[in-house]
């Protein structure tokens, strides 16, 4: 239903600036113009998601030059993780992408398990999947709340945070804390799933699709929303692939690529879900991808809960005592358990030599973890491939023919989390 005036749809050819793909340079004819204004969209700004600095050249209201400066949140995660044992290092990845914290833990833990060639019990796999999908909904809710807030739709903020609090209540029930849960271990889960989780999670899974419908009812037919998102920030499929985009940005540009479908990890090949793809490559399509993904995640959660309810009493962590702590009752009777416990806690378990690159579909795209181990108790090198880092490279391309007001919509739609970008 065309409420907004017709805007250009997807473009032909490539619009990636050259020679530097991430820098939009002022065109020749405007270089000596007197109307040029260089504005610093500084690190502290209510509309950039965190500490992003954009140096923009404006000609009137058109954005003619753009450069993104990052690094204001650089924390040296990778260096810190090299100094800790494998077990302690699992706390660090969570803080990298602080909206989808369990996906970060998941990718690191999957990398360790791949190097260890450890088999994870079924219950842990399904629970991890359930929590990862809850995390995806959490991340999309916060994205929607802040993106809508920046475009002026302030009510979305309140509603999205109401659902977000329900999700965080679920996390608190299972893992003990709201954010940064540190629940995944190198063989499964840290503790068993409490019994009260299933009814609460069911209530949430039943309520969530109605909530998503509510959100769509709020903004989908709003003329201001449509005008500010349709036809803005175009990114064609070839450009998206060349720029390394993944996740909702790529699926909003028409490429059907979802790691959960293409390279299934955990148990994603055993659940039924659709991958939403939209073909116009603008901010509206990315928004629709996010909304549809929330619905699909709820479907996955319902299926996980069905399976998990039948797994009462099964082990939640692998049995390999060289890697996993023995249960505390055994420490009183078995000498080997005591020795294993001691060695794991003091020195840490050893991961065999090797290098591995593991990817996971985080709410932002392909989150990858490249781990090099020298066989010792501490990682040698851990590198995280952060999808937001790559998404910010696309700002210059999306920002062609954009006005200042569109800048905010575009940066919002790329769904960047600065903790991930700067690591």
């Amino acid at each position, binding site marked *: 239903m065309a409420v907004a005036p017709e805007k250009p749809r997807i473009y032909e050819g490539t619009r990636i600036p050259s020679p530097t793909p991430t820098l939009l340079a002022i065109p020749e004819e405007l270089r000596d113009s007197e109307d040029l204004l260089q504005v610093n969209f*500084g690190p502290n700004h*209510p509309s950039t998601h965190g500490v992003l600095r954009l140096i923009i050249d404006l000609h009137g209201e058109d954005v003619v030059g753009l450069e993104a400066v990052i690094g204001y949140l650089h*924390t040296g995660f990778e260096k810190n993780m090299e100094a800790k044992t494998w077990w302690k290092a699992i706390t660090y990845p969570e803080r990298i992408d602080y909206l989808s914290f369990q996906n970060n833990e998941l990718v690191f833990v999957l990398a360790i398990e791949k190097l260890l060639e450890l088999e994870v019990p079924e219950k842990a796999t399904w629970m991890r999947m359930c929590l990862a999908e809850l995390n995806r909904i959490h991340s999309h809710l916060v994205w929607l709340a802040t993106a809508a807030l920046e475009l002026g739709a302030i009510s979305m903020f309140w509603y999205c945070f109401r659902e977000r609090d329900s999700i965080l209540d679920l996390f608190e029930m299972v893992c003990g804390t709201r*954010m940064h849960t540190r629940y995944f271990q190198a063989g499964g889960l840290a503790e068993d799933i409490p019994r009260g989780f299933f009814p609460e999670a069911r209530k949430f899974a039943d309520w969530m699709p109605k909530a998503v419908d509510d959100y769509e009812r709020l903004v989908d037919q709003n003329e201001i929303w449509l005008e500010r998102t349709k036809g803005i920030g175009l990114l064609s499929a070839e450009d998206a692939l060349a720029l390394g985009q993944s996740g909702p940005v790529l699926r909003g540009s028409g490429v059907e690529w979802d790691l959960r479908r293409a390279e299934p990890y955990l148990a994603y090949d055993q659940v039924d879900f659709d991958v939403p793809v939209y073909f116009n490559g603008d901010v509206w399509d990315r928004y629709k991808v996010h909304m549809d993904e929330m619905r699909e995640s709820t479907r996955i959660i319902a299926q996980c809960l069905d399976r998990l309810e039948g797994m009462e009493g099964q082990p939640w962590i692998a049995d390999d005592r060289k890697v996993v702590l023995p249960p505390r009752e055994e420490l009183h009777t078995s000498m080997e358990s005591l020795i294993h416990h001691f060695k794991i806690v003091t020195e840490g378990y050893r991961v065999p030599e090797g290098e591995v690159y593991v990817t996971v579909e985080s709410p932002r795209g392909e989150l990858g973890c490249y781990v090099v181990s020298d066989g010792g108790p501490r990682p040698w090198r851990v590198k995280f491939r952060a999808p937001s880092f790559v998404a910010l490279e696309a700002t210059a391309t999306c920002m062609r023919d954009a006005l200042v007001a569109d800048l905010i919509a575009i940066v919002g739609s790329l769904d960047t989390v600065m903790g991930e970008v700067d690591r």
Partner: protein
Amino acid sequence: MALRDYGLKSERVLWTGKGPGVFETELGDLESQLGLSTVEKAIAWAQGSSIWPDTFGLACCAIEMMSIVSARYDVARFGAEVFRSSPRQADLLIVSGRVAHKMAAPLRQIYDQMLEPKWVIAMGACASSGGMFNNYSVLQGVDKIVAVDIHVPGCPPRPEALVEGIVRLQEKIKAGVPPAYEIRGVAS
């Protein structure tokens, strides 16, 4: 009249029948020593009850800071709901998240742009002391560059914890305790 007659509530919200805690007793002593006049008390009450934070969310703690504005942990009840984007209009700087050395200069610039009286809450472990990141890139505690009034521990602190921090700050203000830059004698 002592503070508890004004309805000092921070620890008593949790446990009825509990006597004043360490914080309240110290504040009570300070208040009687400072001996504010009624006008000053009124001004302090007004300043404390409508303290406006600045949007300075850096990392994970910023998400919990956003959730105190949401409906469940409503901070509007305490007067701190209006998050101003411009530091010139704000009186409270909640440093939420890890401060990289690169960000330290903008942080100080924002602090300088705020008008007196101004207060700073260091939210979370990273802002208070560098947190789990004891390395080349993270400033080990934001009190190295700004004068901090309240440190809220946690990683990230629960929204209730941050609200408790704001409430304690309000009680400090109402007791007449000067902002941290005056106490420490540092440039504001």
